[in-house]
């Protein structure tokens, strides 16, 4: 079974530029998450999708971050314009829906390391 795919793996941009990250979840996983992991810290949830609907985006800085999950499969996270403090690893995870018991474990992709200069 293929895991969660993310691209690109690395991205370096200047501040005030825009950037987009892509995630393809495990096949059949209705729930998709984007986490931000700043160096030296644990990941923090930015947004959770259930199919193509948003469950939680309370921690998403909506003035500069946006995310979509068209057709309930792939997802894109965008930052526009980027700030220095956005330098972090962006992790995508997917899971089966709540209520699936033990199998609703979150599986993570390899992440995208963003550096904002």
């Amino acid at each position, binding site marked *: 079974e293929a895991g969660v795919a993310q691209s690109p793996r690395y991205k370096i941009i200047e501040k005030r530029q825009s950037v987009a990250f892509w995630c393809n979840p495990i096949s059949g996983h209705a*729930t998709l*998450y984007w*986490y931000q992991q700043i160096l*030296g*810290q*644990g*990941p*923090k*949830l930015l947004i*959770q999708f*259930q199919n193509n609907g948003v*469950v*939680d985006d309370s921690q998403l800085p909506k003035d500069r971050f946006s995310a979509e999950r068209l057709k309930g499969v792939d997802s894109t996270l965008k930052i526009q314009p980027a700030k220095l403090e956005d330098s972090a*690893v962006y*992790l995508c*995870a997917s*899971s089966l829906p*709540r209520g699936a018991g*033990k199998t*609703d*474990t*979150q*599986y*993570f*992709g*390899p*992440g995208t*390391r963003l550096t904002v200069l």
Partner: protein
Amino acid sequence: AQTVTQSQPEMSVQEAETVTLSCTYDTSESDYYLFWYKQPPSRQMILVIRQEAYKQQNATENRFSVNFQKAAKSFSLKISDSQLGDAAMYFCAYRSVAGANSKLTFGKGITLSVRP
């Protein structure tokens, strides 16, 4: 809001020895899940072990086991027979059972090194 605390930033263990990583959490909920994730330098988060709060029995997965103390809100990970491949960052995480939100709340992590 729930919080997860990992107060030890780094630990070191001799190969083949046993090491225990500590984690405490704070919640007002009675039912929840707790996890330990491993993050090697490749950055991929890998699930190590999972514990349901309503279960009194401590979870075990091969060389990995937990000591879950619900009243003390403590959730430590024991790694037996440590191997070089166990070297990584380890994160403790909490997940609520209630509601549709499945987010994981992570601690800051602990860096484990394994000495040959």
